[in-house]
């Protein structure tokens, strides 16, 4: 099915007839995915939205359960429930890759987060191939292709004046069939060749990941900590940062538990009872953020946690640049091996000796 770019508004109207459809727009001082209003134009090209789509699956603040005490009886009421179906239209390959990573966090390794799952099951993701990478985009270095979004239900391939809609899941097949019916002749536009685009920024991520396993880069973390403000901008704008904190709102005999986004950049993040803080200094928090993005997540899930969307570079008020940090690590002169790496090497040597 080929849909003219001029028909994106009509497409959003058609989907919007039965469910909420989120499209790139501006709301609350930022570009983000906003609920489409019937009749408004929809444009999928240009710069990516500043706020990623993660809050549609994992809201910044989310009620978990309420409790109430009445005549000595305690009652609990969960807030987790099936979610109304919704569609996200115009997600870039980088952001679609971020959803796949959030799926790993919230749905695998033996625990399913019911709040996330309710929204995830209700969502239909319509991705669009990216033809507008800017100077801070480096998704290709992080294993994302600009012309593919395997986690999406439907992929819109940019073919000049029109998009070719390719369903990729059962949900996607049903969606595209419904669009064809709703759009009629509007679903049969002329198409050119698929537009090809590439990132100009290509940090050496694989090399950095490998070296972060074996060496200490304290000098890198300290030099970044010399200018990082340790504010939460990067973590809140990051499409894959998923840390949250659980809090409560307690009244006399009722209350609610809720969770909200937290940031490893904040001093409070690791503050423990008795006032001990293992990451009290800026450099250790900077180290944690980049080690998690570039190495720890890969240790646990087999892939890194950065999708190269470039938001943290574009909007960092202090000029912290993850692409430059990746290259600084990849090209640094050889360091002393870390204690952990030495132990691993010794163990491997022992194993080899035993085999012989």
């Amino acid at each position, binding site marked *: 099915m080929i849909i003219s770019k001029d028909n994106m508004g009509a497409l959003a109207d058609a989907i919007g007839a039965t469910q909420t459809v989120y499209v790139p727009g501006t709301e609350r*001082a930022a570009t983000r995915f906003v609920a489409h209003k019937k009749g408004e134009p929809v444009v999928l090209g240009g710069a990516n939205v500043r706020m990623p789509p993660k809050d549609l699956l994992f809201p910044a603040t989310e009620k978990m359960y309420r409790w109430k005490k009445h005549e000595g009886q305690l009652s609990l009421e969960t807030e987790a429930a099936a979610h109304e179906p919704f569609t996200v239209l115009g997600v870039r390959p980088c952001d679609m890759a971020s959803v796949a990573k959030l799926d790993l966090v919230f749905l695998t390794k033996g625990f399913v987060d019911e709040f996330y799952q309710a929204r995830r099951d209700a969502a239909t993701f319509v991705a669009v191939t990216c033809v507008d990478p800017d100077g801070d985009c480096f998704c290709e270095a992080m294993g994302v292709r600009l012309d593919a979004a395997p986690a999406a239900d439907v992929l819109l391939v940019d073919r000049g004046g029109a998009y070719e809609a390719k369903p990729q899941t059962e949900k996607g097949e049903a969606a595209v069939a419904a669009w064809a019916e709703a759009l009629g002749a509007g679903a049969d536009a002329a198409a050119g060749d698929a537009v090809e685009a590439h990132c100009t920024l290509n940090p050496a991520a694989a090399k950095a990941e490998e070296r972060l396993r074996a060496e200490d880069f304290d000098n890198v973390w300290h030099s970044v900590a*010399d200018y990082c*403000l340790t504010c*939460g901008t990067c973590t809140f704008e990051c499409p894959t940062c998923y840390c949250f904190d659980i809090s409560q709102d307690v009244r006399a005999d009722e209350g609610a538990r809720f969770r909200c986004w937290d940031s490893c950049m904040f001093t409070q993040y690791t503050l423990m009872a008795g006032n001990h803080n293992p990451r009290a200094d800026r450099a250790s928090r900077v180290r944690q953020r980049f080690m998690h993005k570039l190495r720890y997540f890969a240790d646990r899930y087999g892939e890194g946690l950065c999708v190269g969307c470039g938001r943290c570079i574009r909007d960092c*008020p202090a000029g912290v640049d993850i692409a430059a940090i990746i290259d600084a690590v990849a090209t640094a002169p050889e360091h002393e091996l870390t204690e952990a790496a030495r132990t691993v090497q010794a163990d491997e040597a022992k194993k080899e000796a035993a085999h012989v």
Partner: protein
Amino acid sequence: MNDATQIVRERATALLADGTVAAVVGWAAGRGDHDRHVFVARTPEEAALLVADQYCGALAAKRVLSLLDEGKIALVARGCESRAVNRFMADRQLKRDQVHVIGWPCPGMLDPATGDALKRCTECQRRNPVLSDEVVGDPVPEPELDRFAELERFEQKTPEERRAFFQDMYESCIRCYACRNACPCCTCRVCFVDQERVGWMGEEFTADQARYYGTVRAFHTGDRCIECGECQRVCPQHLPLMLLMHKQVRDIDGLFGPYPGGGMEPEGPDPLRTYHTDDLEEFM
């Protein structure tokens, strides 16, 4: 290389080489042509990386406070940084002999993305450093700008429009605390929002909590603000944070002035914490 960069590098190298200071706080270049970030040079080799040109948008002064354990610190200081040094001294965060001020008469900074003048520079009163141990280059003419223009436009709004304006502003705040972390007046060891056991502040991301944070921070810094505008520059949502600051500065000037703004002199003026027998007492 421009003259200022060259002189700053030479002076930083000399100060580090002869042991006058342990580190020099300035700026260095990032990946992009016009990317600059705050930079701490601790060796003569690192001093060769310092840059002082029209893209050094960030306020460098606050970094000095976290380096005091390393020894005496040199700071490349424009008008705004020098006023921050006065602020730190008045707030007992810094002693004069802990900092060596390399004054840099400021040419005004540009936004690296657009090439336009930074907003904080279009509202600047003092481009030449108000204190220094040495100065790089010749004094520049002080700007003749109306820093309250935005405030005056705002005050034309009706009360309903103002309410809607602030509601929109605080709904947009993502509470990243960049404004607080960048502010030279925010030097509390533990910020009120981080005092979890007291529970001043709820953790929910709502307009109410953001308004509570934003207004308390504005009032806590109102009579000390040096009007550097760094809070607004660092805000990732580009919120008009300087409105409330300019409002307070202008009110203090009108009610208890003359008040030129914070950090102009090493000790004060400090009108809200200074009692005069002829102070206004309209409320009595």
